[in-house]
Every structure is written in C-alpha cells, then in structure tokens.
C-alpha cells in the first residue's frame, strides 16, 4: 500500500493504459466481457482519484503529492508529476466521466467494442497525464498522445463525414501543438544559462520571471496561446468542434466536450498565462474580446441549428467563452469561477451529449424537426433533459449558475492592464485582428441585407440593418482609431484611453458577456420545445421507450452532481481557491497589473451590527477619504473618480 500511496498519481494515470493492454488480450467475441472490464478499470480509477482527493490538502497553493524520476537526464527531462487545486478538480472530473462513458457505450457501440475500449482507456491516460504532468516535455507527450485515440474514435466509430471531421480535428490541433513544441524547446533553451537545462515547469517559470527575453516572450506566449486557443476552442478557431462533435460517437463527444476542451483552458492557466505574464498582459484585452465574441456568436449560431448535437456543440463555444473571460480577468473570483465552470461544462454538456445519444440510438436522427411531443412518451428522459439544459443555461440552484455568476462578478470587478504605449499598441493590433474578422462578418451581413432577399418585408430588413449596425459597433468600431474609438464603447463607460489604459475593459466585456445568459435560455428552450413539447408529429416517435435502467444509471449521477454543485459548490471552490489566488496574484505582480483585482480588496464578510455602527460613525467624519484606510469597506480610487 505504501508504494501505491507514494505513486498515486502514476497509478491513476497509467491504470487505464494497463487496462487498455489487457483489453487487447480479450478475444474479439467477448464484447460484454471487455465492456465490463473497462468499466471496472475506470471505476477503480475513479476510486483512486477520490483517494487522491482525500489526501489532497486544499489549503496549499502549490504543487503537492508530487513524484519525480529522471527520464532523459542529459536534456533535463524528468518524469515529474504533481497536483494543484485546478488539476485536482479536473482529474476528478475526468475520472468521474470515464465510467459513465464506458457504461453509455453498451448500446451505442456495437462494432469493435474491444478496440473502442482500448482507445477510450488510452485517451484516459493521455488526459489524466496532461493534467498532472509538471514537466513540460512530459506534458507535451501526454498532450499529443491524446490526439491518436480521439482520431480513431471519430474516424472509425463516427458518422457519415467522419474521415473529414477526424482529419480536421487531428490536423488543426496538431498544427497548434507543433507551435507549442517549438515554443517549449525555445523557452527551455533560452533560460538554460540559469543553471542548466531543465523542462521542469516550476523551475522554468521561475527562470522566466528572472529572465528578460524582450519581444521573444511575446512570440513564445502566442505559440502557446494559439495551441490552446484551438483546443478550447476560442473563436475564430472553433470550426473543427461542431464537425468533430456531430460526427463523433456519443462517448467520444462526451469526452471531447467534457475533458478534452478543458485541456485548452487548463493550458491557458498553467502554461500560457502563468509562464509568460509579461507578454500575456498585452493580450488580455484581445483574449477577452475574443471570448466575448465567442459567447455571443456561439449562442446565436446555436440558436439556429437544426441538428440537436450541433446545437450543443455550438453552446460549448459560448460556454467556454465565459471560461476564457474569467481566466483572463485575473481576479480571484473570476478565475475560480472559470475553473468551476470547466467542471460544470463538463457535467452539463457531457450529459447533454449523452442525452442526444439516447434519442439518436432510438431514431437514428438528430434533426429537431424529426421530434416533438416526446415529453408524452418519454417523461423521465424529458425531465433529465430539461434539468440538464437548465443547468447549462445557468439556472441558479444548478451548477452552471455558480461558475457563470462567479465569472461575471469577478471579471466585472477586475482591473485590466495599463500598458506602456508599445504594449498598448500590441494589444490594439490584437484587437484589430479580432475586429477584422468581425469586419468580414459585417461586410457579409451588409451584402446579404442589401441583396434584398425575397420574403423579407421592409421592416424586417430595417431590423436586420439595425442589427448590423449594432454588431458593427460592438465588434468593428473599437479597433478604428484605437480601442477607445468605439461609438458605443466610449460614451457608455468613458473608460479606455488611447494610451493603453484598459483598466475598465473587463467591466465592459462582462456587460456584453452577460447577454449570453439571455441567448443561452433562447437556444436551450428552443431545443427543449422542439423535441419535447407540442403534439407527436411523427408516428415513429409514438412507440419510443423511456430511459432504460442502464441509461438512468448513466445519467442520474450527472444530474445529481449538477444539483449538488449548484447548491453546495463551496467544497469545490475551496479546492481551487488557494491555487487560483496564487495564480492571479503572481500574474498581477509580474505583469505590473494593478496589484489586485478591484473587487478583491473590499469587504470579506458581512458586517456585524457593531461594526456597522462604527462604520457609520466613521463615515460622518469630515476627514477626506476616511474610508481609504478602512479595512472593511475599501474602494479603489478608480471607482470613485
């Protein structure tokens, strides 16, 4: 037991791989045996993860439960693993989803079940390894390894256009990660004069803080950022996702949405942003703008999908926009909310993909028009679908709300960067690039509107033009003449100046992001209505079976976790808080951001009546800025001016 205890991370990561090899030994005909075995392996892995959780001390900010063995000593590469709060919660998510996915494939995968399980278990090792690796080379190895089984899962068990989708997924992600490989090697080499070659994440990060790489750091950051932005996926790198989801088998979709995308957001926290704060700070506004475009754009596109699975896929783009916004806000609340939202999205979207799979198996279609009135014949299914759709839409009391709420609260209060002009220019260029994509959209819009499509009344056209103008104001206007030039932006908040002052940008972005909650309700309720309500219009739907016992076993754990994390999120927040706090503070310190997010300074606890009286008394004192020294209620200068 002692050995296992000290090598728990290794055990968790490589148990699925061991399982995969044993699966290969099963005879081809033993489908149920291999499924049972895979289920057992993933359940044991979950057990180990829970054990890990029990040994994890949430009050420690740094890496813990680490392991280290030299791997390629001549290059400074070691087999190093460790876990912090962010990795811990994602390991739990991964381990939790695995048995659910295995169980869900009992009916959805009929051919080559053995190979499917091998891929799934192999993938599991890759994902878990990527979360716990603390050596850059080891991380990259796991990061790349994941692509292979996912490629096969989509390419072999996928739908009609599976080859296209699998290739697109593979090449797109591969392209990004090659950039990252170059950046990793360059970084390690660039800082090796500070005591020899090493790929150790903590050491390299520390060295980077001392090193002065100048503008090279910006390129290094961009290489990491683009690799992860593709993985997340952030607008405009997202188009591989809907294709991959639509073609992937249910189980692969769940893993893809539930865990794989989180490696992108996790990569932003752990690598791109944490390692290169000095360079990253110039791009925070850009990433923020792209995140918000992703939120609104993803939701609007989801709204008009006729394929249920594609709808859920686009909703991921929207939700991960929220995650990215929180991450770059660099406020403790916002980042903690983002990490929580990664898990929430894994639960809700994972569950929605499973639910889509359920009717796909029954009807072999996912078109919304082929359904309607299912609530009558499948009441249990309808209940779970509505519950998890609401959790995805961020209904308070369910998990989705907690993350979104924390992100909105945190990023609205966060102070953005004030950069010297060169950095400000860079950021402006970044925003302009984002704007150029937006401009293309607007040009297209104007062309389409002006194209006088038949069937549009005059007023509808007027409405469309109004939308175009609004979108132009939102997306395009800001880059013209610097960020502060936006027609809507400037008078609305009067925040940004032309000399790189982005202090208030997150407040502004949050307001736009907030509209995402409206659109989320729209597309999810449209889906719910078209699938479940109204009369049954197709005779094939009349005899549909409600959820089987096995399907309920698959779905109920997700539903229960959605409710628990909605009502009692604090244990999970506590798990990530110290890590996130260190991350945000270190970033701000190294990037010369205002010391702390605006919101982090103010009251920590509701006041007691005695304190309140005291406070009131103090307020009446004529002393100027008396509250400036007040430990309970303190406001940054900025908000008063």
């Amino acid at each position, binding site marked *: 037991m002692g050995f296992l205890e000290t090598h728990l991370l290794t055990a968790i990561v490589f148990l699925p791989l061991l399982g995969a090899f044993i699966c290969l030994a099963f005879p081809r005909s033993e489908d149920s045996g291999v499924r049972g075995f895979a289920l057992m392996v993933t359940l044991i892995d979950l057990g180990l993860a829970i054990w890990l959780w029990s040994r994890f001390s949430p009050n420690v900010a740094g890496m813990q439960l680490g392991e280290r063995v030299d791997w390629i000593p001549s290059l400074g590469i070691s087999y190093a693993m460790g876990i912090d709060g962010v990795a811990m919660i994602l390991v739990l998510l991964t381990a939790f989803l695995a048995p659910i996915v295995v169980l869900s494939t009992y009916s959805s995968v009929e051919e080559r079940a053995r190979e499917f399980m091998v891929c799934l278990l192999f993938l599991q090792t890759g994902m878990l390894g990527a979360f716990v690796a603390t050596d850059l080379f080891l991380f990259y190895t796991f990061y790349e390894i994941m692509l292979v089984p996912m490629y096969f899962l989509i390419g072999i068990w996928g739908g009609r256009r599976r080859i296209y989708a699998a290739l697109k997924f593979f090449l797109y992600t591969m392209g990004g990660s090659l950039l990252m490989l170059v950046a990793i090697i360059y970084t390690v080499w660039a800082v090796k004069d500070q005591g020899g070659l090493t790929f150790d994440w903590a050491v390299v990060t520390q060295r980077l803080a001392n090193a002065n790489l100048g503008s090279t750091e910006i390129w290094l950051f961009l290489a990491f950022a683009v690799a992860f932005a593709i993985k997340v996926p952030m607008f405009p790198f997202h188009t591989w996702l809907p294709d991959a989801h639509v073609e992937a088998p249910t189980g692969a979709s769940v893993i893809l949405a539930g865990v794989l995308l989180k490696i992108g957001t996790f990569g932003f926290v752990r690598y791109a942003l944490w390692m290169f704060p000095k360079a990253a700070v110039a791009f925070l506004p850009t990433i923020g703008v792209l995140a918000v475009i992703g939120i609104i754009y993803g939701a609007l596109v989801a709204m008009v999908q006729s394929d249920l699975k594609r709808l859920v896929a686009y909703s991921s783009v929207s939700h991960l926009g929220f995650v990215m916004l929180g991450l770059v806000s660099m406020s403790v609340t916002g980042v903690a909310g983002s990490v929580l939202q990664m898990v929430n999205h894994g639960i809700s979207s994972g569950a929605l993909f499973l639910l889509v799979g359920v009717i796909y198996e029954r009807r072999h279609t996912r078109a919304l028009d082929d359904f309607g009135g299912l609530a009558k014949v499948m009441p249990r299914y309808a209940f779970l679908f509505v519950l998890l759709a609401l959790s995805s839409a961020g209904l*308070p009391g369910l998990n989705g709300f907690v993350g979104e709420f924390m992100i909105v609260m945190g990023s609205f209060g966060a102070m953005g960067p004030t950069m010297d002009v060169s950095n400000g220019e860079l950021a402006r260029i970044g925003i302009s690039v984002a704007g150029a994509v937006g401009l293309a959209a607007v040009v297209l*819009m104007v062309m389409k509107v002006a194209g006088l499509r038949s069937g549009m009344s005059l007023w509808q056209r007027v409405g469309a033009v109004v939308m175009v103008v609004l979108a132009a104001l939102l997306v395009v206007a800001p880059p013209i003449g610097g960020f502060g030039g936006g027609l809507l932006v400037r008078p609305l908040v009067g925040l940004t100046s032309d000399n790189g002052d982005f202090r208030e940008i997150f407040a502004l972005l949050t*307001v736009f992001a907030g509209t995402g909650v409206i659109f989320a309700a729209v597309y999810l309720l449209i889906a719910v209505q078209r699938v479940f*309500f*109204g009369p049954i219009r197709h005779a094939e739907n009349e005899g549909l079976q409600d959820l089987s016992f096995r399907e309920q076993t698959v779905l109920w754990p997700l539903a229960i976790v959605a409710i628990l994390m909605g009502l009692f999120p604090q244990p999970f927040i506590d798990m990530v808080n110290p890590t996130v706090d260190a991350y945000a503070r270190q970033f701000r310190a190294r990037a010369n951001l205002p010391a702390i997010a605006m919101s982090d300074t103010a009251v920590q606890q509701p006041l007691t009546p005695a304190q309140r009286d005291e406070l009131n008394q103090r307020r009446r004192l004529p002393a100027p800025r008396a509250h400036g020294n007040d430990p309970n209620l303190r406001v940054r200068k900025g908000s008063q001016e």
Partner: protein
Amino acid sequence: MLTPKDLESLIALIPILPLVGAIINGMWGHRLPQRLVTIVACGSVLASFVLSAIVVGHLAQSAEGTRYVSTLYTWMASGNLNVDISFVVDRLSAVMILVITGIGFLIHVYSTGYMSHEPAYARYFAYLNLFCFAMLCLVLGSSLPLLFLGWEGVGLCSYLLIGFWYTDIEKAQAGKKAFVVNRIGDFGVLIAMALLLRTTGSLDFETLRTAAAGGLITTTVATAAALLLFLGATGKSAQLPLYVWLPDAMAGPTPVSALIHAATMVTAGVYLVARTGFIYSLAPIAMLTVAVVGAATALFAATIGTAQYDIKKVLAYSTVSQLGFMFIAAGVGAYAIALFHVITHAFFKACLFLGSGSVIHGMSGEQDMRQMGGLARKMPITFATFFIATLAITGFPLLSGFASKDLILWNAFISSEGHYASTFHGVGFWLWLMGAIAAGFTAFYMWRLVFMTFFSGPIRASHEVAHHVHESPKSMTFPLIVLATLSVIGGALCWPAVLGGHEWLAESWLLPITGHLPTPEGHHEKLEWTLMACSTGIAFLGFAIAFALYARRIHPMLNRLVSEAPFRDLFVLVNNKWHIDELYDTLVVKPLGWVSRIVFYEGMDRRVIDGLVNLVGWFGRSIGFVGQLFQSGNVQRYLAIFALALALLLYGWLSPSAPQAEQPAAETPTSIQAR
C-alpha cells in the same frame, strides 16, 4: 414565547417545507393516491403559513428594527465574493411571506377542485409547491444572489406552469416566451449585482444599506444599479417594454394565473425596488424612470384591456396595469404604499382570477366572454365574490382597492413638491392624471367584463355548454369567499389619514425599512379630497359607459360603432394589442434569427472561417499533389528522377563556379559582378 434561536430555525423551514412537498410529489406523486398528493401539497404550504404567522407574531412584539436571521451555510465564497444561504425575516419580508403562504394556501385548496380531473395532478402540485419555495427564497433571501435564486426559480416555475399542458404547442411557446423575456430582465439584475459588488464589496442587503448610508455608492453608480435592477423588475413585473409575456402566460391553468401571474410572482419587481429602496433614494433620476414607466404601463395596458374578449386576457392586462400603479408609488418613493397595493391587489386580483377560473370551469373551458352572459343566477357565489372584487379593483369607496389606489395617486400628485421635488418638478400632476385615467379605463373594462359575463341576457354558448353550467365545488368557492372578504377589509391595513385612518402599514409597520417620506408643508386636506373626488368620478364615468353599452345586452349602438370606419379601426387596433407583439417580432426576433442563420452561421462560420480552414487544408493537399508525382511507384520514373538529380548534382560539382559558391556570402555579389 419562542426564543430568537428557535425562531431562526423555524425560518429556514418556511421555504424548505414547500420544497420537500415539491420533491415528494415530483418524484413519487404519480404513484401516490390523489388524496395523499393533496395532503402533501396543501399541508406543506399550510404548515409554512402557520410558521410564518408564528414568526411574524413574534416579530410584531419585538423592537422596531428586529431582524431574525437564519444562516444555513456558505453558498459560494471566493475572492471578495461571499454569499451565504441565509434567510431573513424583517418587517418587509414578513408582509410578503404572509401573502405568499396565505394566498398560496388558498390557491392550493382551490386547485384541488379545479384540477381534480387532471391526469398530471401530482406534477401540477409539484410545480406549485416548487413555486412557493422559490418565491419564499426570493423574499426571505438576505442578499441579492439569494434573491436572484428565487427570482429565476419563480421564472422557471412560471415557465413550467404556463406550458403545463405542453402538448399544445402554443402553450409551450407562451412559457418559453415568458422565460426568455424574463431573462432579459435578469441580465439587468446580474449586471447590477456585479456593479454593486465592485463598488461596495458585498451583496448582502444590510451591508449594502450601510454602504449606501455611508456614501460609498455615488449617484452615478446608484443610478446605473437602480436602472439595471429596474430592468429586472420590468421583466418580472411585466412593465413596458417587457410586459409582452404576461398576457400570453394566461395559457397556464387559471389558479396559476391567480397565484403567479397576479398575486405573487409578478409583484417581485415591486418587492425588489422596495428592498433596494436605499439605492433608489440616491438616484432620483432612476426613481423618475420607475414612476414614469409605471404610469405609462398603467395607462397603456388599461387601454388594451378594454377591447379583449378573452376573460383571462382582460384580467391579464388589468394586472399589468395595476402593477404599473405599484411602480408609480415605488417611483415616487412611497415604497410602503406600493406594498400596500401589492397586498390589496393580491386579494382582489386573486379573487377575480379564481372567479374567472370558476366561470371557465362552469363553462366547460370556454374563455370567450361573447359566449357567456347571465351567469349571475347560475353561479351565485362566484358572482357575488367576483362582484365584490370588481368593486374593490375599480376603487369603489371604502373598499381595499380604493384605499391603496387613492394613496398611490395622492403620493404621485404631491411628488412634485415632496422630498424629490427638484426631480419630479411638474411631473406629479401628469403622473396623477395618467393614473386617474387608467383608473377610469379599469372601471370600464372590469364592469364590461362583469356585464358581459354575468348579465346581458341569457347565455350565448351552445346548448350543451349552457346546460352544463354549474356552481363550482366548495373547495373552489371557499377561497373565493375568503379573498372577497379580504378585498373588502384589506384597506384597513393602511387606511388613508385623510379618511381618519393611521396608515398603519406605511407609518408604523414598514417605517423602519422604507423610511418616512416627508410630505410637503401645509394643509393639503382639501386638495386631497378634491383629487379623490376627481378620480372616483372618472372611475364612475368608466362604470357608466360600461353600463350603458353592456349591461342589459351588448348595445346596438356599440355594434354600429364597431362596424363604422374610424372607430372600427381603432377597436381592431386595440383588440390586436396595438400590434406590439408583431412589432417586436419584426424588429427583433425575426432579424436576429435571420442574422444568426444567414450571416453568422452560413456566411461567417461555414464560408469565411471554415473556408479559410479548408483553404489551408487545400493548400497542403496541393503541395501533396505535387509531391505525389514523385511517389508514383513507377520504377522507371524513379530512375528517371534519380538520373536527372544525379546529372544536376554532377553539373554543380563539376562546373567551375562551384568552388566560388562556397565563398562567404558577402562576397558573392562582387564576385559575380567581377565575372
């Protein structure tokens, strides 16, 4: 006498009991006998009511500023965000929980009769109990996030209950519309919370109040926060421009309309404004906005009510209009008066809705008033209670509606010389006038409804329906009688001073929370009497016109008028609700869908972005295609390429310039030139 500790543990039970009821009926209700479902559903709300009464009873005997706080656990805490699950009973929430659980219980009882033949009986009561839970969370929550939990929770229950008969696609759509429109308002509340958290570092009501009193919230921030919160209120409380969901919400079962869409949920916006009154007091511009929107809604919705034929639609527009009255009061700073109208409105409007439900029940589901008529004799109890509630809503002297409406109009009128005179300068009279005219319309459409339904000759429905008309069972008439009684005596809660009352609710019970609204100097009694006479006169005029046109039968003059050009067009326009739905549809819904589909999805996503991606792919493949020429598997071709390459190499090796090429690059140009 219970200790505060005991009370605090009881407080948590007030919302939790209905939640337990909802879970039991929701999970296992379809297997339980109907009787047991009834007991669980009504019992949990009744227990909640009794607990509320006990707690409020103790509160009444305690010192003025007493608050019972029951903190259960930390919901979320990270950075500066710190939200507890914590319930507070103070004098404001005390009023609300009594209304919610009291009227909630009556409507549960009514529902046992109204829904007795419904196959999804348990599901209905699960939703209804869940609603009570969410509504109680809304008013008991000690902080804005917890209020928001209830706020969205009631929205969800509203969605589920409007679309209760989901096989009818129109009903499902009405539910969706309600949820989405409410979400627009919720967006405002969300951003307001972010703004307040950023400014004060807390979302707890008491801390916010302290911060506001301490000058931490500047006028700018207060105005922004107040307007954002009011956006939420216009959604939930169906004010202009977001009122459009409420009339459609009548698709739900009638008791739901009474409980959610008349008595409780829709007043949540008023509660929110009253609860955060300390922010509004810092932002007179926001107050003016509230009052003007309220007055405009009151008048606008009342006009639509005059031309509807669906009995529930009339009541729905009436509700929108009455909510407008509440916002007039809230806007001029008379929060207690707004709450007084919340209470009286809950009594008479719940009575009216339940009465209409009783009529619909008797008419075998018919809602069109043109099919009704002469029901007074066939449904005596329904008629009597409906009649009393109509007297109350139209402001018949001495009834509850009279008292609350009069106080609202009076406060609106004197706002131009009161505490916020500089902002409301010259506005007070117009607020009053709009309110008074709206009251006139109210009288007209309510009496029109009564005459068309209960009088005006024999029933106009088919023989089969007519034969079946009956008085409703006791479970339905009992709540009607209770509510009608309350509609009569409810005014005593805050009887106007000018009529010899003490305005107890405003001047003593809610005083510690809403504060005293300083009235302008001087004697206004004569003015107050005059205004009262005027508004009552206008209301009587509305009655008189309705009497003339509808009392005995639908007046032939009306038919003639309706068929003549200018009046007919106006009538059709009003009957079509001024075409606001179509306007929104054309200006927002359709273009948004079109832009999303054609421009964003098909254009941007499929063509531009994916086009670029595929272009990169195509580029790669093109290179591959060229490379492919060298990979044909044809040995002769390989040999040919091999020979060609060898020849090139040899040429490079043997040619005289080759050694020179190895010279340093900088010299190459000169050497070439030299040659």
